């Protein structure tokens, strides 16, 4: 461990990305994510890496995809309006299987919304924010330290699965300052860039899946002379207008994530041993929810908390298990109600599901969540 430092969530995210090997950043200023760009501008050249401020959010997404194709681990960061602009190329990254991390430090939307008050309104945008069928991995930290940890995980998953990964931060964590002790680089497991398993002469096919269904696509400039396209393609990487190949290509994109879902779906439980009720929370809101749970416990309510670190793929197994254990679930989120639909789907009527939503540009107070916990537990004070 390095010595303790006072650090902001956005800075910790940057440190995690650098520790995981990110050496290229392309971005455009937008609050509340700008500190990530500013920190990258200062730090990346110290590592021999490249920071480039692009002309817009679309170019920022394009430039990181180009850098990733040329062999650099690459990251961009933005907030709602900017993420909306990046969506087309997020789909390109999914289709062409280009590793990249997109940080979204959420603020109130839609549109310019309430700049730059906290929100968690981009849960569904993270999942579905591009056209067509595609899988998505999204992680959401609740602390400054976890901003570092999830940045490392996001980079690792993007490389391992060759897919875009969204680090779904919120303004609460992005601008939070806490004391943290960051691990040394040597303490981290870093997933290296995948390499071709055979040569062009041996019949290398850049989009032939390995055993884990992920292709070992060669970096540009390594003599493999590959073709990369956003068109549906076969193992050669060249477009094919064929129903069978189309179905197989889209199936594989989903399956490569689905077969690893248990490994990458991270959930933490608090006060759950004897719990009869549970709060489901994520990101900065989970901090307040945890305080509310402790206050409810002090009042004798047997309530715990399940915190989703991985938002996508959704933690179906954990929520199904929770529904079998508790009498009721309270979903707290800083939006009109997005994740609650997923919880209801997984619970499938096995227990009560209530929503504690807030979308007025302020964060939750513990009392607001506490009163909903009390209502869920049958009005016990």
């Amino acid at each position: 461990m390095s010595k303790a430092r006072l650090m902001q969530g956005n800075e910790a995210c940057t440190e995690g990305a650098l520790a995981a090997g990110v050496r290229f950043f392309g971005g455009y200023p937008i609050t509340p994510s700008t500190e990530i760009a500013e920190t990258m501008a200062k730090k990346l050249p110290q590592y021999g890496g490249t920071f480039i401020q692009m002309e817009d959010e679309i170019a920022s997404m394009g430039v990181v995809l180009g850098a990733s194709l040329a062999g650099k681990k690459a990251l961009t960061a933005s907030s709602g309006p900017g993420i909306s602009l990046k969506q087309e190329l997020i789909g390109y990254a999914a289709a062409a299987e280009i590793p990249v991390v997109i940080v979204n430090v959420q603020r109130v939307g839609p549109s310019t919304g309430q700049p730059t008050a906290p929100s968690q309104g981009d849960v569904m945008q993270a999942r579905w924010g591009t056209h067509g069928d595609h899988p998505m991995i999204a992680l959401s930290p609740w602390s400054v330290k976890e901003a570092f940890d999830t940045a490392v995980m996001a980079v690792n998953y993007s490389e391992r699965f060759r897919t875009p990964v969204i680090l779904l931060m919120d303004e609460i964590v992005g601008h939070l300052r806490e004391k943290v002790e960051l691990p040394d680089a040597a303490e981290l497991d870093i997933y290296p860039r995948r390499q071709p398993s055979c040569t062009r002469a041996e019949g290398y096919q850049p989009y032939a899946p390995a055993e884990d269904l992920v292709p070992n696509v060669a970096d540009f400039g390594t003599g493999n002379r590959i073709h990369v396209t956003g068109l549906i393609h076969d193992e050669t990487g060249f477009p094919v207008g064929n129903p069978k190949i189309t179905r197989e290509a889209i199936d594989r994109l989903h399956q490569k994530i689905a077969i690893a879902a248990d490994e990458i779906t991270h959930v933490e439980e608090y006060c759950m041993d004897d719990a009869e009720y549970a709060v489901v929370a994520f990101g900065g809101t989970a901090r307040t929810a945890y305080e509310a749970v402790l206050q409810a416990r002090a009042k004798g309510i047997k309530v715990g908390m399940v915190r989703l670190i991985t938002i996508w793929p959704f933690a179906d197994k954990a929520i199904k298990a929770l529904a079998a254990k508790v009498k009721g679930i309270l979903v707290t989120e800083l939006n009109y109600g997005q994740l609650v639909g997923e919880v209801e789907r997984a619970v499938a009527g096995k227990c009560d599901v209530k929503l504690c939503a807030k979308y007025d540009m302020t964060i939750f107070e513990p009392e607001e969540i506490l009163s909903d916990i009390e209502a869920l537990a049958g009005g016990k004070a």
Partner: protein
Amino acid sequence: MERSYEKYFRQNRLPHLWCPGCGNGIAMKAIVKAIEMKGLDQNKTVIVSGIGCSSRASGYMDFDTVHTAHGRAIPFATGIKMANPELNVIVITGDGDCTAIGGNHFIHGCRRNVDLTVILFDNNIYGMTGGQASPMTPTGKKATTAPYGAVDHAFDACKLAEAAGATYVARSTAYHVQHLTDLIAKGMDNKGFSFIEAMVQCPTSFGRKNKMADPAAMMMWMRDNAVMKAAWDKLPEEKKTGDKFPIGVLYEASDIDYATAYDHVIDLAGGAGK
């Protein structure tokens, strides 16, 4: 028969999808001839294209190639070049791709003077989607979305590139094929943003709408209206009218390219050698 350029093409991806009489194949071959002339390493040369008729070229060319999204070739190319400056990065784009949906990327690529060679296949129309007006459709010419003639003024992409900071700007045509090849090769020599407008005939989507459906006649039009830069400069202004346009090296400047400029940043930050 001259067959020495076959090694630069993916034979199993041919024939190409362009219409009979299209000028894109001429421009594509001019690029590989320029690559041959300059002796660029086939394994260290990347072709980046956008979307549209022009941009299908990348699939036929045997290099590392990326067929990006509509308008986004220059940002991808910028990322590739900045991530690995030893690569030769060539962009193939079209008039709609480069000056409409990708217009902002184009001017900022020029401004940064990224060491790219950008060849715009200018067919004055959106060909792939069946003939809609582009920002380079001449005013008054017809398109499916300009049935009474284009209302908009057309971009002069070369003037735009020059004004935005490109350090090499040239124009030629599919008729002047050796001239075009030489201009592309010269662009590869420039360490900075090189822009070459290659005027290509589109008999199918542009020509048919504008009483120029014969590809040979379209090339004759190029022959008859193109004026070499040196002669153009001597023309009195009143003669620079009608369809006449200049070809050749239209602008050259010497300036530091973006990757070299960023190397100084890395030096300042103490990251050199890492």
